[in-house]
């Protein structure tokens, strides 16, 4: 430990830290473009200059280690002057693109120019022109003029992904970022450079020009692309998700997320093929009906089967609460054949984030009771028994099980099939009753990731079930001030319900006396009755998640 003084305040910090790290730990912000906590130090942007007593020149805070008794000034006259000069230099060749730049509103250069520069340029010559609208790869656009040569993107590819794909060419003010000859920026994590880029040089092709950042609300969410469960922010405008960005969690995903999760784990929420109302089959066709009708039909039909003729599939796509209540409902009905269908893709995994299990909650589903005690009850055995006619009715929680060919083959044999579905899918073709369920973006719930971390998910998109204001959902400026007759508040609100709520209503019809008002009630019951979740409450899971009691249960995913 060493004693240092920053801006007249004394701190005691570890001795191998740099000034910028020590300051950050103590809540002092030193402006920086090229420095990033998870990347190597390159020290090229020069905006982190600070004054250290007895040092003749200003030093860069990102590459200077603290020593005992160091006295640092981050706002002295010399520092302020130098920072302004650095910004003036950077702005010499930076185009006046803010009106057409997607980064505007979350741009470090904009922010620092406001905060630390006097906003005047003495430079009268034309700016250097470089290529704009360059496709660096399948997901990333580059505007070479906007690049301030901080090299964060290059270091990310080199150091984090281990795929050197980006490089600088030329010299001086003609430096240009490009990909290596014949290469593209196409690694599985390429879109993280968009978040890393302090300016709008690297932008998302998918989100390009879709919305201004200040018009969206951001909700803390969890990616459902695989069993890692990267923490995300879900950006919503007019009840439509427009982009996902990673949210820092040191125990799960650091600052990153993969391109697959970022692009593909939310598109179904606003897709045209959403199931907007409950349905049942009449004369061979699925028709829209009311909730009560659909439930009455499902329950009366289920009652007409013997206990051992019914089976249920939980879902590793669904939350702990959904699965727990399904298990509880089956238990109430005396049905013991329950399992879920795993979705493992061994070819698609790596050592950084991406896991082979393409569902967010197989650990949780198993722990809350979606499992077979013996092989006789496993999902394969259930399929066999459907084939040989022993199982006649099946209840399926949010999972398109018919994508597995051997399941699609036996589904026509069923006499009765109830499913929860958020989007039209293969399984629907065989279903007799379809409950319109909310996606993960429209409900509260918890997921348990591959290592047993329970993480909370919050609704970002509202359905008829909630009201943005009353339910405390994040509000954008437009949500806050919009009236009912403004077009930008007229985003579709669907008549879907969270799966646990649907099961709760069915159980009530079947005579169960459950009392759950909120998702929280379900989770707290799980925590108080299930030893793996012992000690957890919905409250104390917090924003970064909490670990289950591992010793109680073997946490492995079976394929």
């Amino acid at each position, binding site marked *: 430990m060493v004693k240092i003084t920053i801006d007249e305040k004394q701190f005691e910090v570890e001795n191998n830290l740099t000034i910028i790290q020590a300051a950050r730990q103590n809540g002092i912000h030193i402006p920086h473009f090229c420095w990033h906590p998870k990347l190597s130090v390159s020290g090229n942007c020069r905006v982190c200059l600070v004054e250290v007593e007895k040092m003749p020149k200003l030093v860069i805070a990102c590459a200077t280690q603290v020593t005992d008794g160091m006295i640092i000034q981050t706002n002295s006259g010399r520092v302020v002057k130098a920072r302004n000069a650095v910004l003036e230099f950077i702005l010499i060749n930076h185009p006046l693109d803010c009106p057409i730049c997607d980064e505007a509103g979350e741009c470090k250069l904009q922010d620092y120019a406001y905060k630390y520069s006097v906003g005047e340029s003495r430079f009268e010559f034309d700016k250097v022109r470089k290529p704009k609208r360059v496709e660096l790869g399948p997901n990333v656009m580059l505007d070479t003029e906007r690049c301030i040569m901080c090299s964060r993107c290059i270091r990310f590819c080199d150091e984090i992904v281990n795929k050197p794909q980006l490089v600088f060419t030329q010299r001086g003010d003609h430096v240009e970022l490009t990909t290596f000859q014949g290469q593209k920026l196409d690694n599985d994590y390429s879109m993280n450079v968009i978040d890393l880029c302090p300016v709008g040089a690297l932008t998302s092709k998918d989100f390009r020009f879709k919305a201004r950042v200040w018009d969206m609300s951001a909700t803390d969410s969890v990616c459902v692309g695989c069993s890692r469960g990267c923490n995300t922010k879900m950006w919503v405008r007019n009840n439509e998700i427009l982009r996902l960005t990673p949210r820092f969690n040191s125990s799960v995903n650091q600052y990153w997320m993969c391109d697959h999760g970022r692009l593909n784990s939310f598109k179904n929420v606003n897709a045209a093929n959403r199931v907007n109302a409950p349905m049942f089959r009449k004369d061979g066709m699925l028709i829209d009906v009311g909730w009560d009708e659909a439930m009455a039909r499902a329950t009366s039909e289920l009652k007409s089967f013997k206990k051992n003729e019914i089976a249920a599939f939980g879902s590793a796509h669904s939350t702990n609460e959904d699965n727990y209540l399904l298990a509880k409902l089956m238990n109430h009905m005396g049905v013991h054949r329950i399992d879920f269908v795993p979705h493992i893709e061994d070819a698609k995994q790596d050592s950084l984030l991406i896991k082979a299990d393409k569902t967010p909650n197989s650990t949780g589903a198993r722990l809350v009771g979606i499992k077979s005690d013996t092989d006789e009850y496993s999902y394969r055995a259930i399929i066999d028994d459907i084939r040989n006619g022993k199982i006649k009715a099946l209840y399926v929680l949010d999972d398109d099980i018919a994508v597995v060919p051997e399941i699609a083959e036996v589904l026509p044999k069923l006499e009765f099939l109830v499913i929860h579905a958020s989007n039209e899918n293969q399984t629907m073709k065989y279903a007799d009753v379809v409950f319109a369920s909310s996606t993960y973006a429209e409900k509260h719930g918890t997921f348990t990731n591959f290592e047993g971390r329970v993480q909370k998910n919050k609704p970002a998109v509202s359905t008829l079930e909630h009201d943005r204001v009353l339910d405390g959902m994040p509000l954008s400026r437009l949500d806050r001030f*919009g009236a009912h*007759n403004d077009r930008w508040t007229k985003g579709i609100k669907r008549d879907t319900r969270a799966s646990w709520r649907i099961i709760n209503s069915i159980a009530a019809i079947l005579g169960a006396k459950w009392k759950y008002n909120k998702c929280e009630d379900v989770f707290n019951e799980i925590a108080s009755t299930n030893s793996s979740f012992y000690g957890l409450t919905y409250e104390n899971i917090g924003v970064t998640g909490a670990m289950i009691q591992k010793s109680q249960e073997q946490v492995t995913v079976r394929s």
Partner: protein
Amino acid sequence: MENQKPIVHRKDLHWWEQFYIPQIINGMRITLSQVFRPKFTRQYPEEKWNPPASFRGRPVLVEQNGVERCVACGLCSRVCPALAIDVQASETELLKERYPVRFEINMLRCIFCGFCEEVCPEEAIVMSKEFELVFRFQEDAIFGKDKLLISADKLKDRLEYLRKNR
């Protein structure tokens, strides 16, 4: 009771004032003198008024060479205190990269403050001289690009005024 205001008695009229006749004659004199002065009233709507360049009528989008100048930056929408403007950007092949696929101003919300004009980095939205706005349905009050786009030559007055008063 103590807080009550004291009753103010009106001053009694002077004996000369109590006559009334001189007062009436004086009033008639003023009326008569007005009759022979030039008229300021206008036979609106038969007779139209052409407002000066400084007038803030409904905001319109400036069209130049067949396209809007607007790059759909959304600043007008952000600054509008009445939240009247809705802009959706998209990509164009033109040099400006962005353009508004949808640009709507809700004229029931607009309060003619002119902030949108002031904030626009492209001089793409300006206050016109139009002030006659009548609608039968709320929906009709939402002006899309079809109603908003006005060619630059028709807005010369205002554009010049803006340059002079920057």
